[in-house]
């Protein structure tokens, strides 16, 4: 009973007149922490998680400036300054990785980014509710399927060894196309896979923005004699333009984040020259070959460029009068 009254008193204190009710600040701090000890117990596992699995690795970035040896540990390994960065920038791999990453990012932006917007606009023009819902139900499915399954299905369909696509092409043209090993097919495959997997899912956020458009606007436009395309241009598109800008900022901020798992899965010894991107390179050189310091330097380079891209695109979005994300 005693504690109940105290609690109540504390709560009114905090809510309405905190400073007046608590004259000695220092004492009150301790009292607050003591009162909330259950909350701190609840907070602890999560806080420990962030410190161990998020902030400890950030501290681990220092090995990019060392010749890190697992036997010596971070504290005793030799410091080498920016040696690994210099090596990386002078390595022919650097240009190849940058080129592959930028080209994939560019294709992604040009072909994949507009796809959900177009699909959402088309879905929005559908008047038969049941047809719309049926299409939505089907196109959302691949989002939940793992990349391994998507890549496996691609292999089963495209293999020159009895894959259905190649069998049909053989029937028609008398030859087979080695989609999976030909470097020229790597980028189109990556973009087609991601379009197949994520276009439907991507429509959700635009459809939600479209659902919030006031119907009266359309009615007024019809009375004024606006055609459907004029309504699309003057009402529908402006309604989703801020969503488009925010997603564009996010996309530009993650420009270097080419789908790592996807690229890793679709890479083989024959298409490696066009497939290698920063992430797969870090994995290959760091974990497979054990060059921890060098690969950490490569990863750090990518992270720093990434954060500059996020803040940069955010800055420009705000400059052009849109709401930013940060």
């Amino acid at each position: 009973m005693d504690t109940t009254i105290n609690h109540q008193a504390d709560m009114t204190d905090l809510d309405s007149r905190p400073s007046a009710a608590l004259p000695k600040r220092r004492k009150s701090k301790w009292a607050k922490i003591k009162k909330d000890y259950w909350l701190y117990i609840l907070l602890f596992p999560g806080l420990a998680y962030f410190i161990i699995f998020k902030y400890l690795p950030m501290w681990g970035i220092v090995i990019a400036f060392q010749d890190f040896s697992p036997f010596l540990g971070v504290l005793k390994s030799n410091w080498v300054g920016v040696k690994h960065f210099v090596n990386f920038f002078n390595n022919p791999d650097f240009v190849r990785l940058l080129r592959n990453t930028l080209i994939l990012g560019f294709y992604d932006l040009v072909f994949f980014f507009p796809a959900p917007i177009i699909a959402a606009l088309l879905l929005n023009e559908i008047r038969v509710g049941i047809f719309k819902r049926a299409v939505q139900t089907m196109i959302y499915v691949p989002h939940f399927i793992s990349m391994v399954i998507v890549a496996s299905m691609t292999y089963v369909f495209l293999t020159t060894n009895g894959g259905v696509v190649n069998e049909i092409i053989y029937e028609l043209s008398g030859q087979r196309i080695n989609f999976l090993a030909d470097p020229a097919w790597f980028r189109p495959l990556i973009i087609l896979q991601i379009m197949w997997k994520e276009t439907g899912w991507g429509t959700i956020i635009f459809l939600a923005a479209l659902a919030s458009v006031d119907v009266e606007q359309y009615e007024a436009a019809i009375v004024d004699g606006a055609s459907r395309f004029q309504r699309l241009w003057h009402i529908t598109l402006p309604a989703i333009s801020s969503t488009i800008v925010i997603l564009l900022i996010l996309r530009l901020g993650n420009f270097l984040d080419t789908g790592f798992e996807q690229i890793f899965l679709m890479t083989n010894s024959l298409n490696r020259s066009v497939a290698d991107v920063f992430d797969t390179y870090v994995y290959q050189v760091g974990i497979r070959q054990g060059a921890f310091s060098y690969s950490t330097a490569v990863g750090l380079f990518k992270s720093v460029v990434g954060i500059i891209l996020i803040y940069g695109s955010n800055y420009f979005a705000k400059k052009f009068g849109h709401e930013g994300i940060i």
Partner: protein
Amino acid sequence: MNSSKYDSFGERLFDVFNYLFLTLFALVTVLPFVYIIAGSFATEIELIQRKFFLFPRNPSLSAYQYIFSSDTLFRSIGNSVIITVFGTLTNLVFTLSMAYALSRRDLMGRNFVMNLVIFSMLFSGGMIPGYLVVKELGLLNTYGAVILPGAISAFNLIVIKNFFQNLPPGLEEAARIDGCSDIGVLWRIVLPLSKPIIATFGLFYAVGHWNNFFSAMMFLNDSKMWPLQVMLREIVMLSQVAVGDLSAFDPEFVEPPDQAVKMAVIVVGTVPILLVYPFLQKHFAKGVLLGSIKG
């Protein structure tokens, strides 16, 4: 909202193409699954002669008999189930408890912790330092290595925290007057009120674990511990593992075609997701939109 009597010929033509296009889009999405399922029941002759089909003429179970004839696939399914169940429980305990603590505006140090969480979304130590931490903790080749490093998604945490903050405060106050402690309020008031959102994020986390490939490949060297996704790649893409055991069959058993075996393995990996899909679909849009609320 789009009254048809005003439509011109061009607009009607657009409608026709729009319906055709969206139908095609839906078919392109769904037919690969149908073909994979049909092909997994097909015989060698059918795969060669008919090429693309949606119903096998002489359905045969031999591909499934074959892939389940050794314990390779069973074991990896078991591993996936263990990782999914324990991983999701870990996610929920860590995320919900931290979200509730952070949802209390009067908690000292709350802003500092929130900033830690948000910064971790913008910048990360990267793959190699993360790998070294897991290695130094002695987690390599344990399920902990695929469960603990992803125990909390910062994004989910913030969404759930915002949800807790927006619960009606009256109930909590009433419980407190009745003598409930903070943990009592969480257990008896907040969590029961949050069942739908817990189900939503539990499902998201679970699908993530079932689909997880990369951390399992990086952290689990022992093939006996591999989850289904890693095994699937070995079987279907690399053709490294013979999934079945032919010696377990009669001599008359017709060996299933390689393509059908691969399709059957893909079906096994896909079906659990398709089974929970109706639940996912019911909740996911809500989840996406919750995330778009700034907080």
